[in-house]
């Protein structure tokens, strides 16, 4: 399945924030988690994650720190802030509304999901 470019872009911020809300992490691990969560369907160009992370840092949603884990390479770790959590909650509200509306209209009598689901 190919997911539309705009949809990928729109979901990137809440997805990254939600992953960081689980625990602090670094770029490569975040990408692996995205892949895992979407069952491999959601594929990002690796590099593009970083400008996004830097934007979140500028907005004060995440803080960063260079650290060397016991085994492994020196990496920049990202941790979500209080502001970041607030932004995530707001995003969640918006996405709930959107998905609710979408599933309502698609589940309707002549709905798309019905047809697709039965097929």
């Amino acid at each position, binding site marked *: 399945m190919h997911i539309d470019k705009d949809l990928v872009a729109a979901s990137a911020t809440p997805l990254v924030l939600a992953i960081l809300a689980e625990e602090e992490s670094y770029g*490569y691990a975040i990408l692996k988690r995205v892949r895992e969560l979407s069952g491999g369907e959601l594929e990002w*160009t690796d*590099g593009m994650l970083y400008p996004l992370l830097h934007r979140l840092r500028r907005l004060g949603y995440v803080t960063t720190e260079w650290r060397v884990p016991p085994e492994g390479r020196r990496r920049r770790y990202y941790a979500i802030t209080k502001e970041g959590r607030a932004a995530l909650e707001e995003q969640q509200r918006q996405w709930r509304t959107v998905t609710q509306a979408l599933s309502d209209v698609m589940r309707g009598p002549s709905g798309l999901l019905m047809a697709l689901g039965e097929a």
Partner: protein
Amino acid sequence: MTMDSVESQIAEWRAYVAKAPAVDGRDVDELEVHLRDRITDLTEAGLSPDEAFLVAVKRMGDLDALSREFAREHSGRLWKQLVLSGETEQPRTSSGWFEAFGFALAAGVVMQGARLAAGFPEEESMWLFRNLGLFVLPFLAGYFARRRRLDMRGWALTAAPFLFLALVINLYPYRVASHTEILVALHLPVVLWFAVAYPYMSGTIRSHERRMDFVRFTGEWVIYYVLIALGGGVLMALTALILEPIDPNLGERVIEWVLPSGATGAVIVAAWLVESKQHVVENMAPVLTMLFTPLFAVMLTVSAVTYAVSGAAGAFDRELLSVFDALMVVVLGLVLYAISARDPSRPARLMDRIQLIAVASALVLDVMVLGAMVARIGDLGFTPNRVAALGLNLVLLVNLAGAAWLSIRFLRGQVGFHHLERWQTSYLLIFALWTATVVTLLPPIFAFQ
């Protein structure tokens, strides 16, 4: 064996990424670690190191697109490269030198003509003084409108404030020795400077990032202008000394002719220098901020304590309020320099605390003086000068109080640094409105006294 060749390939890749202007060393480190993680995972999955490298690079994505994305996020870093914005742009013949020179020359000629028409310096001309900004800054606006290739609408919107203000300030029937006329003359250049922001930002005046660029430009422009003025001063002084043996008055005459045009042309030349030499010379603002913030912090703290202990604030006059206006402008300048030069994602440092001390001391001082000023106005009533000085003071006070409040919250880690940036870039509008009010509304309110 192949691991070595991968190492050299990674080094090459790294060097290529590092060339992008908006990607700094730490970011390259970050991307390199990512690449290495990916290569490790792929080799563990059975790929040869060479294959793993190729796949990892491919997955990283198009590097040009990536560096564009970085540039969008870190526009401050690009500041040094503004003129070099990509190889794709047509190379400007001699980087717009000719264009800048043309506008500088035109401004210089107009200023000279105005000087002759007013008979300055033989006669004291309020007309010349009042219109000073209008002889210079329209050319600067025109220079930017041309450089940014604005369309007809852009040109019209650039010209509108200049035309409007030229009409207003020259149609007002000022009385003899009018105070409001002097206030207009003092505030008009500032209003016009804000009008230059429109063509500078190519009309995108709502963009906070572009506003910050304009702040940066203003700061660097001041530095360049002062440097040119210093050089020009040395030149003038030497000329006067050399010509003195021929005719004691000759040097003075030359200065009379050269100085007005030179000082005018330098406005545009300085702007051109900021635009084109940014990639050659490192930004001055961070250096100056580092130097002067601690010094000002000490000076302001000492003064605040002295004033509080001695109670000197009660015995002040109007001149002192002007001094405090100047002080607040300088402190605000320091704050703006610091903000524009700072990487917003960097955590709080000692310099941020020192700056907060400077701002807080300035606020304490100002509140003491302001209290006495308000009492004086209560006794003696309003005059145009008092309203202008008091208004400016209040506008600056609110700005610095807001900045101090946000700094405290930033230092405590409650808000991100971009809130501070936002506060200042939003507040620019208040400055523009206040100065425009003094120019357009104050004279009629005080019956052109």
